[in-house]
């Protein structure tokens, strides 16, 4: 009944919105993570609540997986449109799992109407698919009960029954499965010594939310906008137990101003939005800089311009985030490439926002925001609350909020926390914070604010180089394309050329000394970006003089994949 074991498999679940595809995908992903496998999940959906075509792809295996894969091993079709759209992606040995009423000849034909009512077909499909992958029924059942637990014990039990029917049907069907080779020492792998669970199933947005809390954030204001909404929702889900306040704002302008008010008062805050919402916030960015108020701004990119493709992915707001906010002031922009980096770079963002008292950005996108991974526990108990203001400062009256200092940073007090008066102003101001028309003070204040940029430069994260030194081909990437770049480099090596990736988890500031040698030492340098104009390549040329002419660009709304990069290299004549 079982076929040979697979080191990794790519499962694609497809169907209409409303068929419970995401539920199936999430439970399957959690089952895989609890079984000890590593995963890269990729969600694709339309901007609607019912109908359309949605997909949930899970690439799972026991070795390190960093990117999506285009070819599909198991196509779980909840409707016939899925078969038509994705059959061509199947590997030669790949299979379709579908209802007998529309399954193609070579497929595993499931009599869903015998296993479940129309509402639970997705759970029956989960059972069948889990059995195909060789997963333990108990683990899947546990994951299902945790998922349905909030809906009550009865609902969970009913669904567990349907799940079991799916498993049993496959066991007795005589069909050949596609079992994943189990993780060695799986039972020991499941728990660390003190009995706490091993890996977490987290997506990029959840990691950002937890990174913020661990850094000391207390406030988030937001307006719902795909693909950023799951950040405030994750914060809201835990707000009570973790002492956090989430407020849904009337618009994005209110959101950023609220977060600035909270931060000014001493509660570290963040906002999360996408390009169009961020466009509304840009005056607020300028306000943060002028009043020297810390704030972390998360922009989760989707294709624009304007409303664009609300549910797809892109990397085309780099220039917007780099320049938004009238006037001149320093900023930092982090661009995490993995879910772990989403956590750690958000922490770094809070640390720097407080340190330089200004706006710091975390730039992500729909692909990473929605991409579940198996993450090693983040040891939060060993991490400091790096974004919390220091209230231990002793100062003499009269307190001057914008006292000129060597570093440009003035000691920051919060209103009502001492006998001192704290005055902040969006007008140009004197050291005391009051409006000034004195142009020599103006000049000093411009220089004060810009001087803080030196701290950001000193703290910059160098780009990550991985692969062969002096490579034939160097792939330059930023943000969520990191994993695809690394796997593409592996594919290039398999074809006999040396290859490496240079990935930027921070695109501003740039400290050329840290990476120019890598660019100069490579045979050919290729920029990999999810936009049409090569925004980062152009930024690099602007700042360093080094031009990257060869570019692999993707702007169809879909994530960058290793295969897309390799095809691009072929077109460029590099491989």
């Amino acid at each position, binding site marked *: 009944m079982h076929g040979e074991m697979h080191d990794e498999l790519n499962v694609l679940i497809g169907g209409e919105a409303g068929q419970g595809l995401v539920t199936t995908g999430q439970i399957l992903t959690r089952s895989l993570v609890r079984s000890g496998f590593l995963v890269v999940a990729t969600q694709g959906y339309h901007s609607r609540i019912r109908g359309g075509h949605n997909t949930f792809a899970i690439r799972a295996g026991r070795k390190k997986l960093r990117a999506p894969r285009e070819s599909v091993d198991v196509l779980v079709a909840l409707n016939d449109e899925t078969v038509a759209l994705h059959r061509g992606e199947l590997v030669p040995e790949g299979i379709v799992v579908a209802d007998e009423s529309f399954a193609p000849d070579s497929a595993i034909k499931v009599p869903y109407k015998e296993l479940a009512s129309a509402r639970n077909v997705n759970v029956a499909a989960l059972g069948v698919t889990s059995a195909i992958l060789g997963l333990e029924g108990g683990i899947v059942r546990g994951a299902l009960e945790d998922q349905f637990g909030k809906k009550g014990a009865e609902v969970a039990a009913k669904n567990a029954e349907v799940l079991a029917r799916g498993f049993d049907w496959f066991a007795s069907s005589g069909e050949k499965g596609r079992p994943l080779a189990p993780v060695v020492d799986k039972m020991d792998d499941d728990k660390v010594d003190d009995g706490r669970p091993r890996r977490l199933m987290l997506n990029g947005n959840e990691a950002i939310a937890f990174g913020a809390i661990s850094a000391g954030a207390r406030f988030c204001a937001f307006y719902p906008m795909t693909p950023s909404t799951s950040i405030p929702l994750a914060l809201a889900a835990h707000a009570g137990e973790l002492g956090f306040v989430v407020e849904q704002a009337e618009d994005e302008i209110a959101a950023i101003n609220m977060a600035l008010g909270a931060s000014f008062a001493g509660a570290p805050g963040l906002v999360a939005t996408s390009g169009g919402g961020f466009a509304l916030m840009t005056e607020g960015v300028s306000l943060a800089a002028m*009043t020297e108020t810390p704030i972390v701004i998360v922009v989760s990119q989707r294709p624009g311009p304007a409303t664009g493709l609300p549910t797809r992915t892109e990397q085309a707001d780099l220039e917007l985030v780099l320049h938004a906010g009238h006037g001149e002031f320093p900023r930092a922009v982090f661009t995490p490439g993995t879910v772990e980096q989403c956590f750690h770079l958000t922490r770094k963002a809070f640390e720097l926002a407080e340190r330089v008292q200004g706006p710091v950005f975390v730039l992500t996108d729909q692909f990473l925001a929605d991409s579940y991974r198996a993450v090693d526990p983040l040891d939060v108990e060993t991490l400091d609350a790096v974004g919390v203001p220091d209230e231990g400062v002793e100062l003499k009256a009269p307190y001057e909020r914008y006292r000129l200092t060597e570093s440009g940073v003035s000691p920051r007090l919060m209103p009502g926390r001492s006998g001192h008066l704290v005055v902040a102003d969006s007008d140009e101001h004197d050291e005391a914070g009051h409006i000034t028309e004195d142009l020599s003070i103006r000049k000093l204040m411009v220089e004060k604010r810009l001087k803080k940029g030196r701290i950001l430069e000193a703290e910059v994260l160098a780009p990550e180089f991985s692969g062969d030194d002096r490579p034939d081909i160097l792939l330059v990437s930023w943000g969520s394309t990191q994993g695809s770049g690394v796997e593409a480099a592996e594919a290039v090596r398999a074809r006999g050329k040396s290859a490496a990736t240079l990935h930027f988890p921070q695109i501003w500031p740039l400290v050329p000394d840290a990476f120019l040698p890598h660019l100069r030492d490579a045979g050919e340098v290729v920029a990999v970006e999810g936009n049409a104009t090569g925004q980062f390549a152009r930024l690099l040329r602007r700042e360093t003089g080094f031009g990257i002419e060869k570019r692999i660009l993707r702007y169809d709304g879909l994530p960058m994949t290793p295969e897309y990069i390799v095809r691009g290299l072929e077109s460029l004549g590099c491989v």
Partner: protein
Amino acid sequence: MVSVADYGQYETAWCPGCGDFAILKAVKKALAESGIAPHEVLFVSGVGQAAKAPHYLNCNLFNGLHGRALPVATGAKLANPGLKVICESGEGCTYGEGGNHFLAALRRNIGVTLLVHDNQVYGLTKGQASPTSDEGFVTKAQPGGALSAPFNPVAIAVAMRASFVARGFAGSIDHLTELITKAMAHEGLALVDILQPCVSFNKVNTFAWYTKRCYEIPADHDPGDREAAMKLAEEWGERIPIGVIYEDDRPSLESRIPTLSAGPLVGRKVDAKALALAMEKYA
């Protein structure tokens, strides 16, 4: 004991004869009489001549963007509900640029005292119609006279059951002081729309114009009677009622957020254990 002198005396950027002087006086008196010390109060203002007012007294201040004082005030109040937060700006800032935030603040009933200097014109930008300019008001921007109906802030506030709605007049400083004192003591969003002349750019709604029309709401008006309040709120023109129009005991937003019952968000230590436990649920 807090005295008016504790609030200091500062040179202003206002035109001689501006109604803002009287309002500033009333605000200082109200604060002193309420026993609120300068370091205990946070003023949040936007942009405009009125928005400069908090620079002219000793206080904590966040002078932000045009129209955006209320969201900043909301964020600050949620971060530290113990702070006395007063929003002070002009009507252009509060009802025009910031109109959406005015409505949202009324919905939230955030515990902020909202003092609006309402002179029915945009003064600092030199004389355009404002949200409360009467129809037909002639300016260089509206040379044929303003064509839009004026915004009625007190009627909107009563319709939204704001917790405290009052209208004052800069020409009646003692009456205004009392209104501001009452507003500051009231939980939730307390609005005082303060009529004042703009001597430089509004030649219609002058000090004399307001004096002739404003009358104090009689003592027998019950501010809890919403129907009566709405009638007063809609009265405008030859007779303009000033005083407390409406009062409601709707709880403030910050009093309804369980997290805040444990104290302000400011100064809390991260509970790493609780965070680790919360994250374990994702395994």
